[in-house]
């Protein structure tokens, strides 16, 4: 598991539309069980197996600009 | 020969005065009897690197003025009565957004399409709102062409100073007739400050926005109270003319072209020994109730003369203590009372 998070989701902006979940090829985004201030069960990123390749499709599909994506520096 | 003196129509004088006052944007739509304004602007604006646009509608024209104004450009539109009805949308939005701009109404007969004769039937529309919402707008009413030119320049200063739409309310007679006008050099009548609210791209500053929708609880009420404060300041800008009013036993109240005809009738009456005088409001809003009250209350009779079925008469009745002595003489639908008609009316009332 990578030490740093590649997909950062601003949970207060997330409205749980699920566009990112639908189009994530790795299946590592899911609707969480906790809700934000607006009452939405915001999307969470869980990449235990380090599948994320930082393709940023999730950010591309996000209507709320709630997702920022990072990738590991090449060593 | 004075090269600034020109024989010019009212409409063209208004257009040239606007250019002299620094107006650099005009949008309008053809309607009689004001067509000389867009026609003049169509060749004159490019000469001063300004923008002339023949809009697809009155709605588009006033909204173009809205757009030009928010860039800080001095902007105007003109029309005649039916077209001014259409412009009310934009005027209300400009009042709400606090955008300066000048609207010229060369009034014609109404209601509906009416006719193309001069008229004063839009007094209510001009002074009591016109568009929706709680707003006030300065209304300037010239009675001669030189005065129209002077007021047109002042209109831009009021507009910028108070960040408000300003209406020049004239009529088809004044628009079409010609007079010798000595154009005075434009000098601002108000101290004008740099417009620090315009939208020109947020370069080295925080982004700005201009809007009139305020749905947050209490936001609109707060905005309305703020506007009232401004309207109260604007109320001090009253202008009026009196003529032989000091000892007048009969006070004629008339504005615009009727003020001019009224003056001629008063001269006829004075020759006959009748103590007649004139009160002529120049700003219709704010209305000079104080002066109307002063001379109207002193006079035995007050005669309100308008080119309509009786509109300003209501403001005179509010200003004069004893409204029973206020009489009205008007001709609607393009009819014009002559100085002889008014003289007869004065004689009848003073008997």
């Amino acid at each position, binding site marked *: 598991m990578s030490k740093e998070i590649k997909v950062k989701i601003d949970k207060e902006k997330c409205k749980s539309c699920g566009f990112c979940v639908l189009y994530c090829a790795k299946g590592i985004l899911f609707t969480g069980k906790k809700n934000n201030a607006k009452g939405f069960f915001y999307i969470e990123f869980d990449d235990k197996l380090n599948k994320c390749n930082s393709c940023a499709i999730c950010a591309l599909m996000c209507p*709320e600009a709630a997702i920022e994506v*990072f990738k590991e520096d090449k060593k | 020969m004075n090269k600034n003196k020109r024989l010019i129509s009212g409409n063209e004088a208004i257009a040239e005065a606007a250019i002299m006052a620094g107006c650099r944007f005009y949008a309008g739509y053809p309607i009689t009897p004001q067509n000389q304004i867009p026609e003049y602007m169509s060749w004159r604006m490019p000469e001063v690197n300004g923008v002339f646009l023949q809009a697809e509608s009155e709605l588009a024209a006033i909204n173009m003025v809205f757009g030009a104004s928010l860039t800080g450009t001095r902007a105007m539109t003109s029309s005649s009565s039916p077209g001014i009805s259409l412009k009310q949308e934009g005027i209300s939005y400009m009042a709400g957004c606090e955008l300066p701009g000048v609207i010229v109404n060369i009034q014609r007969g109404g209601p509906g399409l009416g006719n193309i004769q001069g008229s004063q039937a839009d007094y209510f529309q001009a002074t009591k709102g016109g568009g929706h919402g709680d707003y006030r707008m300065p209304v300037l009413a010239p009675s001669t062409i030189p005065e129209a030119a002077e007021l047109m320049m002042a209109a831009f200063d009021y507009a910028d100073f108070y960040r408000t739409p300003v209406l020049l309310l004239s009529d088809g007679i004044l628009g079409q007739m010609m007079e010798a006008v000595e154009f005075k050099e434009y000098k601002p009548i108000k101290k004008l400050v740099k417009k620090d609210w315009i*939208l020109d*791209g*947020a370069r080295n500053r925080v982004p700005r*926005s201009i*809007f009139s*929708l305020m749905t947050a609880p209490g936001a609109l009420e707060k905005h309305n109270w703020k506007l009232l404060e401004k309207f109260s300041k604007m109320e001090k800008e009253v202008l009026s003319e009196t003529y032989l009013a000091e000892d007048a036993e009969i006070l004629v109240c008339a504005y615009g072209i009727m003020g001019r005809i009224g003056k001629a009738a008063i001269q006829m009456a004075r020759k006959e020994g009748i103590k007649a005088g004139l009160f002529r409001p120049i700003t219709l809003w704010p209305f000079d109730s104080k002066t109307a009250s002063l001379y109207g209350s002193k006079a035995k009779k007050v005669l309100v003369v308008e080119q309509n079925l009786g509109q300003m008469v209501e403001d005179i009745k509010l200003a004069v203590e004893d409204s029973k002595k206020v009489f009205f003489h008007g001709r609607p639908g393009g009819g014009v009372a002559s100085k002889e008609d008014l003289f007869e009316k004065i004689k009848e009332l003073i008997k």
Partner: protein
Amino acid sequence: MKPVYLKPESLKDVVTSYCPGCGHGLVHRLIAEVIDELKVREKTIGIAPVGCAVYAYDYFNFDVAEAPHGRPPAVATAIKRCLPDRIVFTYQGDGDLASIGTNEIIHAANRGENITVIFINNANYGMTGGQMAPTTLPGMRTTTTQKGRDSKLHGFPLRVSELLATLEGTVYIERVSLIDPANVIKTKKAIKKAFSNQLTGTGFSFVEVLSPCPVNWGLKPLEALKFVKDQMIPYFKLGILKDKTEEMKKEKGA
């Protein structure tokens, strides 16, 4: 860690008032990305419509004016004529642009104003609660067509892009959608072209975005994407309806 995607500078760091899965937020973000990429944030003036996007000035991090309903093209015309070196765009919904503002959009297009228009087509009046729009599909239920839009009573959905493409004054017109990542990328490309054309003085550029409105359609966000794909796209065909960009560039010597 290196950033791959960061929130664009041209968007404010706020939560929007849009419903979950609404296309407005997505298109806002794409516009903001394009403005960042073209480095024109400090000279852009946007015109917000009346409709759900009326609060666009709360979301965009550049100058924005709110125009009366349907009038953004008239307002934008005047701004661009007064400040020709600024980037001026209107952002309008289908009620604003295709109904109350048809006159303004047709004439701004016909004059060939050097502005960019982003047109959001979601087949209904969103802000007022989902009434029939000129773009509502035949048979589609809205609060004013409760048994479905009957074309005999209400006419047919208006294809604004096709209409504007017939005008001499228009340069670039494309209809796009947001149904999947490939189409979102296409939409961004179209928006970028529409803004770039303004920079080169090429002329009137128009992008129509078929946009989901899940709440008023009574659908879940993902179902709404499917509705756009299965119901809207067959009627409102995607693609470039007109492109005189290269021709105009040559003419301008750009």
